[in-house]
Every structure is written in structure tokens, then in C-alpha cells.
């Protein structure tokens, strides 16, 4: 992911981490990603 950030030629990059994947959340937060919102996806 450091390579991805280094090569990016845009100003924002978004991604979603599934609840329960705490290791991924810690990784992204350590890289400088900001948590924007938590959501539930529901099929109506």
C-alpha cells in the first residue's frame, strides 16, 4: 500500500474495511487513512 500511495496521481483514495477486520483498520490508520464513516449495507 505504501507503493500505491507513493505512485498515486489523484488527491483522494477511498476504501472500505469490513467490520471485524481490525488488523486492516490498524494498518490503514497507521498509514494515514482517516475514518470517515461506518455504515451498514442493507438489502431492502
Amino acid at each position, binding site marked *: *500500500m*505504501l*507503493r*500505491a*500511495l*507513493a*505512485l*498515486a*496521481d*489523484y*488527491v*483522494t*483514495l*477511498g*476504501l*472500505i*474495511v*469490513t*467490520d*471485524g*477486520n481490525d*488488523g*486492516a*483498520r490498524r*494498518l*490503514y*490508520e497507521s*498509514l*494515514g*487513512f*482517516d*475514518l*470517515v*464513516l*461506518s*455504515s*451498514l*449495507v*442493507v*438489502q*431492502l
Partner: protein
Amino acid sequence: MPVEEDPSRGPAGRVLLDAAGTPIGRYDHALRGNGPIADLFAREPGVSVDRAAAAVLAELRGTRIAADEELGRALLAAGGTKVRHGHLYTYDFARRPPPRDWEAPPRVRLTDVDRPAADLVDAYGAAYPPAHPDHGLVTGDVADELAAIIERGQYGPLLAGSGLAVGEDGAVVGAVLIGTLEGGAPPSTARGSSTSSATPRGPGSAARSCSARSRWRTTSRSG
């Protein structure tokens, strides 16, 4: 309770109104998989969960909705089916310029996506074992899912930063695939908006990565 276009969110923007024409919530309309999704649904300020749930249930039946956790729970209580509970992150390059160099993990090469999608199938499968939170989201046809992204441009051309991790035996052991989702710029904590993802020098971006080994943890599944 009609749904109207909301150009302020971009071409996919929609606003859900109540019977009196009062905005209830705004979202990005898209088609994903087999049906519509109301992505990044954001209640208008002051709109309660109950009021929003009533409007959503009245107007958006058959839709997959990505709502805040409170509203999501109300929709589940009303009979909806949980698809995913996720946490949206964004990286703001303007606010936090990243280092321009990187180191590959030992015994791994980092490359551009210069291999056919079929070469990623084993790593993808290994990244989501049964105990992984995303295991249930893996489709039955991983090869086709990867080919759609890499070879058929499901999310537009792969963007800069997409890449592979290749082990000493030449096998792909991880990948970061960055593409474009409808809906404009990703939400930013700095400005508190709630759209999907975008760039000023090109289309929006969203990352999906997978890995067969612990160095690159399985991280995200966009959408």
C-alpha cells in the same frame, strides 16, 4: 415520497424527499451486481432514524442501501438483510503527502499489474479464508470478478498505484487494484461530505487489495 436528482453530489446524486417535499437524505445511485444501490446515504441534519427509515422503506424497496449504522440497524429491524458492515476510510493526498518511495517486503517484488487476472486467483482465494470477515463476500467466480476489474474495466482503467506483489517463485501473492466508483470525491473528514471517490486529475479512486500472506493483510473490498 419522490426521489429527485441531486446535482450537488454529481451525476449519480439523488435526494429522497418526504411527502411534503422535505429532503430526508442524500445518496449516490448506482447499479452494482444485480440491482440498484443507494450508496453513502446521508440523513439530512435533524432527520431522525425513524423518519428516515420510514421514507427509505416506502421509496427504496428492492434497493441495497449503505446507511449510517443507526439507520442500518433500523432497516434490519424492519426486515432488511444485512449485506455488509463496513468502515469507510479515505486518504487525502493534499493534506498528507505520502512518502514517494517504498520498500518491498523481503523476498517479494512489487510490480505494476502486468499479469493476466488469472494469475491473481490463487492469492485472492487465499486472502479470504473462512474465518476472514470478507469470506462471505467472495463471489463464486473469482476469476471472472478479477477479469472484470483488470481486463474489462469494471471500475474504469486501473489507476496509478495499482500493483502486484510477486513471490520468489513468480507467483502473485498480493495485489492492490485501484479503480473508479461513481459518485465523485470520497468523503473527507476535513470537509465532512459523503460521496464516493474522485480526483481532480482523473476519475475517482477506490482500492481493493488482497494477499495470500500476512505481510499484506487483506484489507478492503470496495462497494
